């Protein structure tokens, strides 16, 4: 189960022990306490307030995949939000549209993604309300998110996400990635999280000259593979397509899966050995 971090427990204990919550340089934390034991307990005494910076993601989404095809760009994700190893929320949206030609898909901490959605929607609202014929391009959004993530990382309080920004504007596809430490890059084919291991080689093999229907099939196949091997993935997926005519985010639907492989059924498949 989701472990209550042992870091938090001693901090909570010392909250009661130590009345001063503010740091006083004249009496650094722990200075007015007697000689403490070796190691752990002194660290607890030196940290009266709990660490409120993100240290690990709690509610998480698994990898997102993205691919440029002929005439647009496609992004796919499942709709599962996990609480550790519990598949808790089975119909959540991890893909969000921004304006008329961009979508953002996120893996990682979902509460941080909700924060990002708030920021991006605010940005988009301001952009729309200028009403001057200029609108943010997908690249502008990508750069903005990169700056946000990098600045958070520098404060040691990251938004624990890997984001993919996909868009189509002025006849050109755009695909960019930003992660929790602010790494930004663009590519024709992209995946986050487990998708990097399971799906990226398959996407690369498919190439970027597919038709929309072919691309959709490739996405489903990749997510199927991911679902088969990734404990945190589900078979209920969403696919977002951005083309000249705008954004189309599908309703979630179930993909088929096959579990009758010999290797799954028979654990002695590879010889007399049990897992």
């Amino acid at each position, binding site marked *: 189960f989701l472990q209550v971090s042992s870091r938090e427990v001693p901090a909570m204990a010392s909250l009661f022990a130590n009345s001063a919550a503010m740091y006083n340089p004249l009496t650094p934390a722990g200075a007015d306490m007697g000689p403490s034991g070796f190691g752990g307990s002194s660290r607890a005494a030196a940290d009266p307030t709990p660490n409120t910076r993100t240290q690990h993601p709690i509610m998480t989404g698994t990898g997102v995949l993205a691919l440029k095809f002929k005439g647009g760009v496609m992004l796919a994700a499942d709709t599962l939000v996990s609480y550790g190893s519990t598949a808790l929320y089975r119909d959540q949206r991890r893909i969000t549209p921004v304006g008329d030609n961009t979508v953002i898909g996120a893996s990682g901490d979902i509460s941080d993604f909700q924060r990002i959605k708030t920021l991006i929607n605010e940005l988009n609202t301001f952009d729309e309300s*200028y009403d*001057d*014929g*200029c*609108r*943010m*391009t997908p*690249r*502008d959004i990508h*750069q*903005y998110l990169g*700056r946000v993530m990098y600045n958070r990382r520098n404060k040691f309080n990251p938004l624990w996400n890997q984001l993919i920004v996909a868009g189509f504007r002025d006849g050109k596809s755009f695909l960019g990635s930003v992660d929790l430490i602010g790494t930004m890059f663009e590519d024709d084919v992209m995946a986050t999280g487990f998708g990097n291991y399971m799906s990226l080689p398959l996407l690369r093999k498919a190439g970027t000259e597919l038709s929309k229907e072919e691309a959709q099939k490739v996405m489903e196949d990749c997510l199927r593979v991911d679902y088969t091997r990734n404990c945190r993935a589900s078979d209920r997926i969403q696919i977002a397509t951005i083309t000249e005519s705008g954004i189309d985010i599908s309703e979630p639907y179930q993909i088929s899966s096959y579990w009758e492989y010999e290797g799954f059924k028979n654990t002695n498949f590879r010889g007399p050995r049990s897992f």
Partner: protein
Amino acid sequence: MFRNQYDTDVTTWSPQGRIHQVEYAMEAVKQGSACVGVRSKTHAVLTALKRSTNDMSSYQEKIFKVDDHMGIAISGLTADARSLSKFMRTECLEHKYVYESPVPVQRLVSDVADKCQVCTQSASARPFGVGLLVAGCDQTGPHVFYNCPSGAFFEYKAMTIGARSQAAKTYLERHYTAFEDASVEELVKHALTALKETAQNHDINGKNVSIAIVGVDSPLKLEDQAGVQAYVEALGGDAVAEAPADAMAD
């Protein structure tokens, strides 16, 4: 009649519903030497007449590059103009830092206008005494805007500000319908011809004129003296006067 009673500070209205201090600030713009801004489908051009206080001094720069896609021509208090252009340059850089793309022209012009407006509603600050002609290109094409000390801004196909600019305005009013489809060279010719009308003795040359050209596919270029002289000579006719040989001005 009552003008002198209600013009002491910018926070006082006159009975006619005017704020005289702001109007006085706009007078300062009319005292500066002329600037012309024109725009076609593909380019925006700024020209300005530079003044020098005497033969020993340099000519006051009138056109400032704000970013690769934007420049301003000023008329009025140069110090105020430098303050605003510093603000505009910083805003351009900050926008580039976050979005890695050039700031849309109208948005920056609108921010400058807001900055000017603050000073028309404050007891502790005076209005800016400079008018800006902003020429820039963004994803919606080329634009020419005019920022007024009152905090208002307008977009123009052709505009002129500064001393004796009425003569230039007359020329622009007669010819502006040709600007939309004009080539760059024709556009500069129009802008220079309009500017010539404002110069004393129609005397324009490489030393006392500035030209800046920005296009959808070309970054802002502030012409150097040789470049300006070439454009002036291309005007032909009685416009061309040789740069005075004894002037140490730059």
